[in-house]
Structures are given as structure tokens and as C-alpha cells.
């Protein structure tokens, strides 16, 4: 026979609990390790370690999700997310341990008058401080994590805030009891006074206040509503022209003007016959950053590729931008030394905006890109994927073996790999035929290295059957490599030697002119864009854009920004322009008739770019890529 339940006893039991009875001490997790310690410092250290463990377990995974959202190139899969969570758990654990230790010791150093009757108040203040800090962090983390995503549903937000409140209360409570224990050990009264307000009411009130505060903070920190419009169908309405986009890095318009008079650059003269648009250059002379801006029509803050040099975090497939100067650089060197990070190069995992060839492919056009920065790893996802020969394609073609995102689709690699000896031979013949000799062996070697890079790209391009493509984009870095090798060292050079180097550089223009002759030969229904940027030589302040071919305007002039190139090319291809692009199509490069028949059309968005995942298992070419870029003068 069971005794009937007495509601009075239940009520009294609850009230006793709120008054500190019927509680044998759930705080053992925090104070447990300190059970044999007598000195305040030892208690603070041991209890703080447990608080660190709590913080690590609770905050590490949460922060991993946050940082993964903030740095899209960092986390490429579940494994990366786990590794980042471990890193951040260590970081937060260490930070929480240190903070708790310091806070406890500070509390223990308070005047003895505070450690008596007010010990509980002081320890609670410490707990409130830590809990509030934790809640603010978690709330802002949630806001940041959802800044660009459509995940901010009210139910999820309420759930996340409740979890955040729970974590904060727990950490605050742990800090509070640690501070109290340390104060007790120092000489205060070890027995806590019982508060008149029951503990559960205090906790409930704190939770309500914390939730309200977090919700308020969330609203205050709310960004402007992001566009969540799904990518629309891109209807192509065009004059039916194909576009070749030839990207020349390291181009000096003034040198071009001088050489035009010599009659030794007829192809370039033809390409610039209609005039040129002055193209501004980024203040930061970084090829990956600048050419990704041109390819996406978005500034670096949006497209995500901040620089050529990046750092890969140990254990992760993703990477973070590498700061070239100051404390961040020193920190990077230290983490490299500790093998926590290693140098790497810009890649498509950082890229957050669609490139013009991706947009063209989305619109159903046949597009291909060769050797553009940050195109690795290449994927062949989607119904009509572009052909991508990434900036690592040459390395893969040289080495052979299984693809690791260097070329897509796979059948293109299979074919080019079979043709690789012929491609090499074609490139060698081009160099032998077109590259003028130079007496300085160092200059000759530099020119040869640069010419090899460009000649291979053009040879590869010729094997893609350009007439079958609506868009072919080729990036030619040779001139920049040569120019940087000959003029970019910054060493004092004798005038005679400088003159020889300038002569050698002029020779490269002659080579480039010959290289482009066939590739840019006039063809029906084709427009050739030559986009030239000054490269890494800071004294050249602007580049140029030349447009030739059918439907190109007879006279071209004016100024443009790098962000104007992508919308211009897309407009010529007949693709509507996204309102998210900050640049404007340079419609004046087209004839008046085309302009009037094909006005600029707009769409809200091209949709979000998804970073490639599931690739790069072994990263076998990572080190070789860096070595190659080092040999070409790109990285130190």
C-alpha cells in the first residue's frame, strides 16, 4: 500500500530546495578537483580548469559553426568542422580557464570586509559578469552566423537563445562558486548565508532577463534584410556573338603606345585599333585579388579572395587569408613555425561570388576558363558546367595522375593529358619562333619562364575548339612574371643594365603579340575583350580594356573599374545583369545598333555560390604549386 501523495510536502520540499536544503552540492564538477587543495591559488587553478573544460565543450562547437560561416573557405566538410571545433574548444577552454583563474584571484584579493558578509554578493557579481559576457558573445555569434543565410527562423532563434542562456547561466554559476570557494579559502566564512529569495526564483528571473537581453541585442545587431530571392532563370537575349576574354597581367599602356610606332606589335595594334578604356587598378597589387574582382564583378570584401597568399590550418581543407604585413604576418609566421598553419595560395574555397563563366554556364552558355586565379578546385556540378582549367591545370597535366580539382570536366583532362606532349611541343615551337633573344642570361631565363607559362595556356586554348564556346576566358600572366623579374626586385641597377632589361621586356611584348595573333584573329560573330592590368609593378597606375570584332564600337574610350568588366562581358553574351553587381556594363563598347536592340536587362540575383566540397583529399600539388609560384616571383 502506498502513501497518498501530500501536496503540502511537495511544496515544502520545493521551498527547502530553494533555501539551499536537500542539495548535497551539484557543484562538485567544478570544485571536485580542488577538494584536496587548501591554498586559494590552488583552488582557483583547479576549479578554473574545470570551468575551462565546460567552456570548451559548450562554446567550441558553437564557435566553429560561427567561424565557418564567417570564413567560407575555412570549413569544407564535416571533418573540417570537427577540427575547427577542437581548435576553438582548446582556445575557449584556455581563455575561460585563464579568465576564471584571474577573476577568482582578484576576488580573493578583495578587502577582508568584503569577504565576510558580502562574499556571496561579490562571487555572484563575478558570475553575472562572466555569464553576461558569454551571452553577448553567443548572441552576436548567432547574428553573424545568420547574416547571409536564410536560417533565421523565429523558432530556431528562440531555441538557440535558450541554449545560449543555459550555457551562460551555467558558466556564470561555475565562476560564481569558484570565486566563493577561493574567498572562503582565503579566510572568509566557509558557510554561505542563505538568501531570502529562493534560488530557483533567482535563476528563473535571471533566465528571463538574460533571454530578453539577448533577444534585444539580436534585434539591435540585426543587419539589413539580405536578399533571399532564389536565382532566377537567366534568359539569354543576345546578338549571337561569341566572346573571347584575354586577360593580360603586367601590361603597361604607355609601353604599348611606344611600341605601336615600331610596327612590331601588329596584333596588339589591331586589338587596340578602336581605342581603349582606361582601367583602374586596385591599390593592393595582388593578382589573385584583382583578377577575381574582374571575374566576379564584386569587390574583394564580397567575393572573398583577399590575396594570393593564404594559410591553411593544420587538419583542415579550408584556408584563411594571409595578412602580408604587421602583427598578423608575424602571428602567421609563428603558427607556421608551430605547424598549426602552412602557407597556401588563393583558391575557389574562399570564393563567395559567382564568376562570369559560372553565370554564363548557369544561363545555358558554353563557357571555358583557362589559368584564372582562384579557379582551383574546379568542379563539374550543375546541368551545364563550364570547362575549367584551373591555375593548377598545367601542374596536373605535367604530373599526370588522378585529378584533384585541377581540371573539370574529367573528359577534358583525359583528352588534354593525351595531347600534352604535343601541347608542350607547340609551346616550345612558339617560344623558339617568337621570343627574341636577349644577351643577359638572367633576363633570358626570366623571359623564357614567363613565355612558357603563356605559350602553354594559348596552346591549351587552341585545343578546346574555341568556336564551340560562347565564352573563352584566358589569363596570361607571362608579362607580369617577366616584368616583375626584370624590374620588380627593387635593387639598384646600373643604367646600362636597366636599358638591357627594358629591351628584354620589349621583347616580351613582341612575343605576346605573336602569341595572340592566331588566338585573336578576326572571326565572324566574335568579340575579343583584351583586359590588361598593370600587374605588380606599382609605378604603372592603370590598365586598359580593348574591344574588337563584330559589333564592337568604332571608337572606344573612357574609364572603367575592374568591377565593370564582368557585367560588360555578360551583357555582350546576352545575360541579364544582377542587381547585386556594383559595376555597370560598358555598353559604349558596342555599336549603336546593338545597344538599341539589346538594352541592358536586369535580374535580382545570380544566386549564392556554393563552395566546392569533397575534393582535395591529399592536396598533392599544394607544395608544388607554392614552389612554382615562388619560382615565378609570386610568393616569398
Amino acid at each position, binding site marked *: 500500500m502506498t502513501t497518498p501523495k501530500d501536496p503540502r510536502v511537495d511544496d*515544502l520540499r520545493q521551498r527547502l530546495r530553494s533555501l539551499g536544503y536537500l542539495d548535497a*552540492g551539484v557543484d562538485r564538477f567544478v570544485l571536485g578537483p580542488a577538494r*584536496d587543495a587548501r591554498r586559494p591559488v590552488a583552488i582557483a587553478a583547479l576549479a578554473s580548469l574545470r570551468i575551462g573544460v565546460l567552456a570548451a565543450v559548450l562554446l567550441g562547437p558553437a564557435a566553429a559553426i560561427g567561424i565557418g560561416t564567417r570564413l567560407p573557405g575555412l570549413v569544407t566538410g564535416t571533418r573540417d568542422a570537427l577540427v575547427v571545433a577542437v581548435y576553438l574548444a582548446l582556445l575557449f577552454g584556455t581563455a575561460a580557464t585563464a579568465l576564471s583563474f584571474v577573476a577568482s584571484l582578484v576576488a580573493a584579493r578583495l578587502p577582508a570586509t568584503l569577504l565576510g558578509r558580502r562574499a556571496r554578493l561579490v562571487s555572484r557579481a563575478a558570475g553575472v559578469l562572466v555569464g553576461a559576457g558569454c551571452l553577448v558573445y553567443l548572441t552576436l555569434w548567432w547574428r553573424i552566423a545568420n547574416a547571409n543565410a536564410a536560417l533565421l527562423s523565429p523558432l530556431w532563434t528562440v531555441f538557440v537563445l535558450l541554449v545560449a542562456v543555459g550555457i551562460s547561466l551555467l558558466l556564470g554559476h561555475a565562476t560564481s562558486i569558484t570565486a566563493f570557494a577561493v574567498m*572562503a579559502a582565503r579566510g572568509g566564512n*566557509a*558557510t554561505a548565508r542563505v538568501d531570502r529569495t529562493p534560488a530557483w526564483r533567482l535563476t528563473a528571473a535571471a533566465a528571463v532577463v538574460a533571454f530578453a537581453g539577448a533577444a534585444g541585442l539580436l534585434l539591435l545587431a540585426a543587419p539589413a534584410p539580405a536578399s533571399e530571392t532564389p536565382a532566377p532563370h537567366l534568359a539569354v537575349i543576345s546578338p549571337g556573338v561569341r566572346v573571347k576574354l584575354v586577360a593580360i597581367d603586367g601590361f603597361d599602356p604607355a609601353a604599348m603606345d611606344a611600341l605601336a610606332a615600331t610596327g612590331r606589335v601588329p596584333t596588339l595594334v589591331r586589338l587596340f585599333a578602336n581605342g581603349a578604356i582606361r582601367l583602374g587598378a586596385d591599390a593592393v597589387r595582388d593578382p589573385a585579388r584583382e583578377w577575381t574582382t574582374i571575374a566576379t564583378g564584386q569587390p574583394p570584401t564580397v567575393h572573398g579572395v583577399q590575396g594570393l597568399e593564404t594559410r591553411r590550418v593544420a587538419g583542415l581543407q579550408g584556408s584563411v587569408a594571409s595578412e602580408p604585413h604587421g602583427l598578423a604576418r608575424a602571428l602567421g609566421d609563428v603558427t607556421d613555425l608551430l605547424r598549426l598553419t602552412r602557407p597556401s595560395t588563393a583558391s575557389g574555397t574562399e570564393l563567395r561570388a559567382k564568376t562570369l563563366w559560372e553565370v554564363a554556364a548557369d544561363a545555358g552558355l558554353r563557357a571555358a576558363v583557362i589559368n584564372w586565379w582562384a579557379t582551383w578546385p574546379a568542379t563539374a556540378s550543375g546541368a551545364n558546367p563550364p570547362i575549367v582549367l584551373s591555375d593548377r591545370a598545367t601542374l596536373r597535366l605535367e604530373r599526370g595522375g588522378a585529378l584533384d580539382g585541377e581540371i573539370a570536366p574529367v573528359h577534358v583532362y583525359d583528352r588534354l593529358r593525351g595531347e600534352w606532349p604535343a601541347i608542350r611541343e607547340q609551346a616550345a615551337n612558339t617560344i623558339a619562333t617568337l621570343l627574341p633573344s636577349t644577351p643577359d642570361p638572367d633576363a633570358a631565363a626570366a623571359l623564357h619562364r614567363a613565355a612558357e607559362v603563356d605559350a602553354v595556356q594559348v596552346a591549351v586554348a587552341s585545343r578546346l575548339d574555341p568556336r564551340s564556346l560562347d565564352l573563352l576566358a584566358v589569363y596570361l600572366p607571362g608579362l607580369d612574371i617577366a616584368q616583375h623579374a626584370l624590374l620588380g626586385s627593387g635593387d639598384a641597377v646600373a643604367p646600362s643594365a636597366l636599358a638591357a632589361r627594358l629591351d628584354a621586356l620589349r621583347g616580351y611584348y613582341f612575343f605576346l603579340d605573336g602569341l595572340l595573333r592566331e588566338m585573336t584573329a578576326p572571326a565572324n560573330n566574335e568579340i575579343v575583350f583584351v583586359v590588361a592590368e598593370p600587374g605588380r609593378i606599382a609605378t604603372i597606375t592603370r590598365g586598359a580594356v580593348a574591344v574588337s570584332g563584330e559589333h564592337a564600337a568604332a571608337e572606344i574610350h573612357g574609364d572603367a573599374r575592374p568591377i565593370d568588366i564582368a557585367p560588360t562581358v555578360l551583357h555582350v553574351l546576352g545575360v541579364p545583369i544582377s542587381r547585386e553587381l556594383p559595376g555597370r556594363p560598358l555598353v559604349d563598347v558596342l555599336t549603336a545598333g546593338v545597344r538599341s536592340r539589346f538594352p541592358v536587362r536586369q535580374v535580382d540575383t545570380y544566386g549564392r555560390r556554393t563552395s566546392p566540397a569533397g575534393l582535395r583529399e591529399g592536396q598533392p600539388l599544394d607544395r608544388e604549386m607554392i614552389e612554382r609560384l615562388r619560382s615565378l616571383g609570386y610568393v616569398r
Partner: protein
Amino acid sequence: MHLPSFFSEYQRLADDELRRLVPDRGEAVQRSMAYTVLAPSKRVRPVLTLLCAELCGGRAAQASPAAASVELIHAASLILDDLPSMDDAPLRRGRATNHREFGEAIAILAAFALLNEAFGHVSRSYEPALATRMTSLLSGSVGLDGLVGGQAADLLATDQQIDFDMLERIHRGKTGALFVAAAACGALAAGAAAHAVASLSAYAKNLGLAFQIVDDLLDVEGDPSETGKAVRGDARKTTFVSFSGVAGARQLARELCDTANLALQPFGRRADRLRELSAFVAGRSM
């Protein structure tokens, strides 16, 4: 339920120390002091001090000055509680209360003498830092948050309807505070770590309230020949039984004793004697 078998050993130790401190001879005040201090008693508080000291690795002898001081304070509080201006109790520890035997003035003086002797004994028996901590604990258990505060609240509550929080405050002041101080002083005398002190304080806090609840129960249904007090002496007061009924009060006392035992977990089997003490408190009939 009878006292645990090991009790007598510790009682003897406490009694010896108390006899040495308060010999039953000399002037009226001194005899008055001894009358209450040396009266037959279970010595639950001093035994608690001694057990806690042993549990924390010390010897009982190390803690006997503290244990004796705790009992002196308790005795002083009994004398004062029984005064006509307070509870006006006729019986204590099976005989006439102190003021009925020696007169009110002598009883008051004896109580004050006992209090001062308690603090003096602690300060003489331990090195200064430890003595300071113990004195702080003991004075806290006597002051506004302890016996004085509890008794004052109790007086004001007589013939009044009080709420549960007030009742708890009274019991904490009159019983719980000295229980906690007794346990903590024992642990400190053995040089225990803060965590051990905290665990034993939690034990004593729960045990103290259980002790008081059982006291309330005994007042309702106890045998005066066993309790040594007049039954229904608390009839004008609100007690735990008023809130929960007899069965509920006994249930809560058991739960409090269970919780006290939980607080002993870090000590393992070494704390079995304290577990026996809590079992005795939960089932006592005297």
C-alpha cells in the same frame, strides 16, 4: 532509536574537556554554568565536531577544544532560551531549568560566562590564523544570523501565524547555524581543504534542519521521560508539523538526512559514522 555505539567514546572526550573547563564547584555562577553544561546530554554538536575532524584526517583530541566550545555556546543558548522573558521553560535535560535552580540573574551571568569561555578557549587552543577562522564561524553562529537572530525571530513569532520562510529562519538560527559551525570547526581543526569544509557544512546544514524537524515531532508525540522536555511546550508556536503534518514532517526529515549523507560522498566509507549520526537523527525518539 538509540545513539550509535561509537557515540559514548566521543561523548566521554567532550565531557572530559567540559569538566576541565567548567568544574562543578565554587561560586553560584560557576555552579550554574556547570549545572547546564554538565547535565546529561547527547552531545550531538561536539560529537559532530570530533567526527568531522577525524574524517578530515585529524585526531579527535585536536578538535576537542573546538568541540567543547561549541557545547559551551549551546549550553549558554539553552539557559537564555529557557528564561522567563523568553520561553519560560520549566524543564531542560530532564531537570529544572537553570534560572529556576539559580535564579534569573545568575542564569544570565552564567550564560554570558559560558559564551566568553567558549571564545577564550578557542583562541587559547589554536594558532592565531585558525583560531581567528573558528572564532569567526562561532561568532557567526551566535549573532544575528545565528542563535540571537533565531531566538529573536522565535520570540516575535510566538502566538503569531508565521510563514514557512520565517520558520526556516528561526530553525536555521537556533539550530542549523551552530551545527554548521560545529562541523566546519572540526574540519578546520584537522586542516581540511575548502571543499571538505563545504561538503561537511552542507551535511551539517541538512542534518541541523532534520534535527529540528524531529524536535518538533517529538514535541507533538514524544515521551517526556525520554525527551527531557515538557510535551507540547511549543504549542503556541508554528512548527514544521503545522505545515506538513506529522507524516510529512517525518518524510522531510528523512529526505534531509539522505541529502546530508549525499554530501558525504567524497569521503567514501570513512564517513560511515556521520551517516550513522544522520540515521540516528532521522529516527530518534529522544
